[in-house]
């Protein structure tokens, strides 16, 4: 197999390709030179603090706005009407017509995505049943609770059976039971070989759901790749530490790059060119009393805080 052929095969596997994209609003730069790929059949975590540029990027992907620079391609072609119909987008800002009946509302959103009414009716019945909303079919949307309208909004996102699902903070406003329920539904959709982009600032949720991630901060990419690999790369230089004293050692930038304090343990990120043995030695000689010293794989949350606070 030649190198170009291998490359083509890899390209085939890519659902979304974002290349050197920038977007500015006046003097404010919302997204700066952003590039990443989303692979087919994976759950892709789109992570970052509020205001990092997540929603702006998503809006460019779904074709609501156009990048100032760079290119976005979906299934190998530029964003067009046909390609857009393959996306299901659940925006962070949820919106439903309050006075419309649940059934009519879903029919309308399906029609906007080009689904025939007959087909839509079948899928509406299936999904309302799946989401336990069947008895609300002929009720007005105003009568629904917040959690129920969230679920209704989700149905409207998947009715046209999109190949790419973009979910912006899909669990906000849901109670824990419904969060678990929605995770189940998302896993089910993933098992049908669909690609899911999952945008959130909740790291522990992302950690449980995502295969790949990108971390944005202040309009730029901070880190990206497979969640497994990223965590492994941190696995050699994070220590879970419980000790008394030794504060001056932990403040030494030559050995320690960052410390995140939890209730009774600290997570210590080693500086580059430092190793755990050296840290242990320094702590012992400084007279610190060590009750726990363990090399660990950091949580995504810790990586996030470490990267964002730097």
């Amino acid at each position: 197999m030649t190198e170009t052929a291998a490359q083509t095969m890899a390209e085939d596997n890519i659902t979304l390709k974002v290349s050197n994209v920038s977007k500015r609003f006046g003097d404010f730069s919302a997204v700066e030179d952003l590039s990443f790929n989303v692979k087919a059949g994976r759950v892709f975590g789109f992570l970052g603090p509020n205001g990092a540029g997540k929603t702006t990027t998503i809006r460019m992907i779904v074709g609501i706005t156009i990048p100032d620079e760079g290119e976005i391609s979906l299934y190998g072609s530029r964003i067009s009407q046909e390609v857009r119909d393959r996306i299901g987008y659940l925006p962070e800002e949820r919106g439903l017509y309050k006075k419309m009946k649940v059934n009519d509302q879903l029919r309308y959103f399906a029609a906007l995505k080009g689904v025939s009414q007959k087909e839509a009716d079948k899928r509406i019945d299936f999904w309302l049943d799946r989401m336990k909303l069947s008895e609300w079919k002929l009720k007005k949307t105003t009568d629904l609770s917040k959690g129920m309208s969230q679920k209704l909004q989700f149905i409207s996102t998947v009715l046209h059976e999109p190949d790419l699902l973009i979910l912006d903070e899909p669990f906000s406003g849901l109670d824990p039971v419904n969060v678990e329920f929605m995770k189940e539904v998302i896993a089910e959709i993933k098992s049908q070989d669909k690609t899911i982009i999952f945008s959130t600032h909740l790291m522990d949720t992302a950690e449980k759901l995502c295969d790949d991630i990108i971390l944005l901060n202040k309009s730029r990419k901070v880190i990206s790749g497979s969640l497994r690999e990223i965590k492994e790369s941190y696995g050699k230089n994070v220590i879970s530490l419980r000790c008394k004293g030794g504060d001056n050692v932990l403040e030494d930038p030559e050995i320690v790059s960052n410390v995140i304090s939890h209730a009774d343990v600290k997570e210590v990120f080693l500086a580059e060119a430092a190793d755990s043995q050296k840290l242990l030695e320094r702590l012992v000689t400084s007279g610190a009393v060590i009750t726990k010293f363990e090399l660990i794989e950091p949580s995504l949350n810790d990586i996030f805080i470490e990267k964002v606070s730097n």
Partner: protein
Amino acid sequence: MQKFFAVLKREYKKVVFTWTFVITTLLLPLIAALSFVLPMLIFTIEGDSTRIAVADPTGKIYERLRDNLSSEKIMERAKKAAEDSLKNIDPSQEAQLKRASEQLGGNFTFVEYNAAGKDPEQIKNELNARVTAKQLDAYLLIPNDLDGKDAEIELYSRKAGDFIVNSTLEDAVNSAVRSQRLADANISEEALNLLSRKVGFVKKSITETGKEKEDATSPWAGFIVALLIYVVLLVYGQSIMSAIVEEKETKISEILFSSARPFELLMGKLVGVGLAGLTQLSIWIVSVLVLLAFGLASLVASGIEIEMPYITPPMIVYFFIFFLLGYFIYATIYALIGSMVTNMQEGSQFALPPVLVLMLGLYFCFAVVRDPNSTLAFWVSIAPFFAPIVMPVRILAEIPPFWQIALAIILNIVTILGLTWVASRVYRVGMLMYGKRATIPEVWKWIRHS
């Protein structure tokens, strides 16, 4: 296109399938129908016959009066009056006239009374006693000398306020006395009718193209049309604005914009709501036309004089064309405002200028009705923003040359194209701007850059 129709369908159904729409659509024809039917109803209620005695010492008037108050004679007179105002009467209208006349004729029961040789005081005493005893409702006192200069016929009645009975009686008595005088002078009634026949007076105006035209339109039809257009444009414009503000407030626009092009969404909304307006207006126009055809005859028969507006099919076509032009102009302006503001309160502040322009158009209509060929009438009836409300009024008052109508249509279509071009740009950006109202310089930037 498929998405455009999806939007169109939703917007149409959203307006038409509501109680407000059904009620307002049916209310207008209902009011119109009532204004025709009510006079007829009142007639039926007042069908209580008036018992009347005629004290006629001369013995010459009574028979003629009685004859004049028969339904045939009343019908004859009503028909003549109706012919004057309606031009031609169809069978159903004639039947209505007949019914109304029979009702009127049956209003009188004659009570025999012999007045020969009695002096007026004695007659009055006798008849007053019968009125007090409720055997009689009214009586006519006819003087001995009818031809005297001060001859007066007196009506004494328990119901002196019943104007319909009074006027019918007065007509009949006058006509009876006149016939008697003619007979005394040896002139036959036929000869008199021939001699005293009215000469026709037809008003014809000369149009600007030099053609003559029968001027038969009364101004009220023009005002009603102007008012109707004014109200419908305002109501539907405002509803477009509130729909757009709702989509912005509830952030639905985000989903909509990820599914369809903003232009499709905007046009689907404008056309959908426009069709709903057209539906309502068509129902109104058709029902008013039907009512005019059937109801006018009964009004005339009841003695209410009304002039039939002169309406031709092309006028109705023009009316719909100009309504649509006006709708797209004002709905687009309201859509533009809706995409700039963040809530309805802000929206209604911005909505004032278009309302003022529409009101100005309404005032221009008065000038146009008075003189449809003036320079002012020409300019305001072709001008963008004004033409949709002024031109239909002018057409009703007097059809202007075709090139002026065509010019008005073209100018307003160009205006609509310009407005939609601007509105679709503002809509695209404005709908995604949350939390803050757009300033005019910002909007200007959106228009230029997108």
